[in-house]
């Protein structure tokens, strides 16, 4: 059901989403960082998109690995290595597969988060991308555990991610550039958490679209 075509399509759509949200992400970063998060994400995912044609024939793992390497070698900043490592670990978790089961997807998501944590040494609650990703993963897992469909599970993940983004407004940053602001970081939402929410939302939209085509 979740095959490599979808992965390719998802990354194309993510590139579009980032481009549309470039100004928003940059503005969020201007408030508590260095005003480049929108630029970084657009740069990385545009490079990924441009690479996709040449790799669409590979398996899921190979596709994700290329995505990772492309992202790492074009983005820079904190998000380059963090998202890059996430994709790299995701890639390693699905070696040799042309399609992914729900369990595969959960493992992939978990591996991605672990990759980010290995690189960035951050926990939930430090006002980073993890604050939308971890709740999203938890919600997805719980939803699949109780037998929900993938679409429903991803819907719940998206909602949890958005709540996570909202939550970042209430806390002090202790990791990343925003940590230099101490108390002044309160009241602002984290750009990286926001882009992770946008990614989840995009994945969801792609799936919903496919679903409706099938029906």
């Amino acid at each position, binding site marked *: 059901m979740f095959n490599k075509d979808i992965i390719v399509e998802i990354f194309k759509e993510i590139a579009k989403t980032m481009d549309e949200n470039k100004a928003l992400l940059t503005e969020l970063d201007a408030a508590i960082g260095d005003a480049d998060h929108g*630029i970084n994400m657009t740069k990385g995912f545009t490079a990924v998109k441009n690479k996709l044609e040449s790799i669409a024939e590979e398996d899921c793992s190979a596709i994700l690995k290329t995505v990772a390497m492309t992202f790492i070698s074009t983005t*820079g900043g904190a998000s380059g290595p963090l998202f890059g490592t996430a994709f790299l670990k995701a890639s390693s978790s699905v070696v040799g597969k042309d399609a992914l089961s729900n369990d595969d997807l959960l493992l992939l998501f978990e591996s991605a988060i672990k990759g980010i944590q290995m690189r960035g040494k951050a926990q939930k609650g430090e006002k980073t991308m993890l604050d939308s990703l971890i709740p999203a993963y938890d919600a997805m897992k719980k939803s699949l555990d109780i037998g929900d469909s993938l679409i429903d599970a991803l819907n719940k993940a998206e909602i949890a991610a958005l709540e996570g983004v909202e939550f970042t407004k209430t806390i002090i940053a202790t990791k990343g550039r925003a940590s230099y602001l101490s108390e002044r970081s309160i009241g602002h939402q984290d750009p990286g958490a926001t882009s992770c929410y946008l990614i989840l939302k995009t994945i969801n939209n792609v799936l919903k679209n496919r679903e409706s085509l099938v029906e």
Partner: protein
Amino acid sequence: MKKLINNPANVVNEMLEGIVSAHPDYVKRVVGFDVLQRTHSSKKVGLISGGGSGHEPSHGGFVGKGMLDAAVAGDVFTSPTPDQVFEGIKAADNGKGVLLVIKNYTGDILNFEMAAELAEADGIKVEQVVVNDDIAVEDSTYTTGRRGTAGTVFIHKIAGAAAERGQNITSVKKVAEKVISNVRTMGMSLSSCTIPAVGKPGFVLAEDEMEIGLGIHGEPGIRKEKIKSADEITSELVKKIINDLQLQKNDEVAVMINGLGATPLMELYIVNNKVNAIIKEMGVNIHKTIVGNYMTALEMAGCSITVIKLDAELKELLDDVADTPAYKQF
């Protein structure tokens, strides 16, 4: 946004070309990469630094005798990618190992770390130090910690001298770490700056406001307040540094008054006048003072003050000859 540029997407490339054509005796470009490398390399431990662009003359300006062997330039305010840094490490390597001077930013650390992994896989001996001289932010093991700012120039100078003297990578690293534990910086700004690709300033200050304790990326500081006199501002910054360094009578220091890009030298010297008075009044000896634009934030107006506590070893190395485009010492 008013800038003397062509296309925001090309600023780093054109700048690097402009540096190389201005200083061909000092630096050359690693073909295909945003890396400047010493024109004349020598068999010594390699020193490499880098980070986002927009801090000129950091870091390419410090490539040369007695300082850096290579500098890697990322996009404006964005740390360079691992492959660029890896290329820099290769350029700095003369078989004696390479010391990476990294400023403490998540992006810099992660990208340089990944590059170090690539270099080690390639058989290059790599060591790293992380500069965290900015005391605006409270330090804590649970946070990212303090930023690396203008104090980095002292690492380049002093560890660069150790490498130039032929010390091995272990002792060059030890020297760099000694500098790091003895250098402190605190900054302030009167205006923000604009990343070319963004087109508008990172923050806005009213005509009577300033930011205290800001970094070098157009990010806000720790506090916004009403502008004060140069003496008042300087006193606050210096006193914080003195406390943090636990400076004592008869200590010996070097001082850097660093402009953030748009500050007239006149103002930096007015600041130095007060810095000098405060430190001398304590009975602390100022061995050397450096005044100018060394670690900038594009066209930001403001300054940072850096103090390094010297011992005999650091002092001697600081006094060693250096010959780079942006820092020369006889």
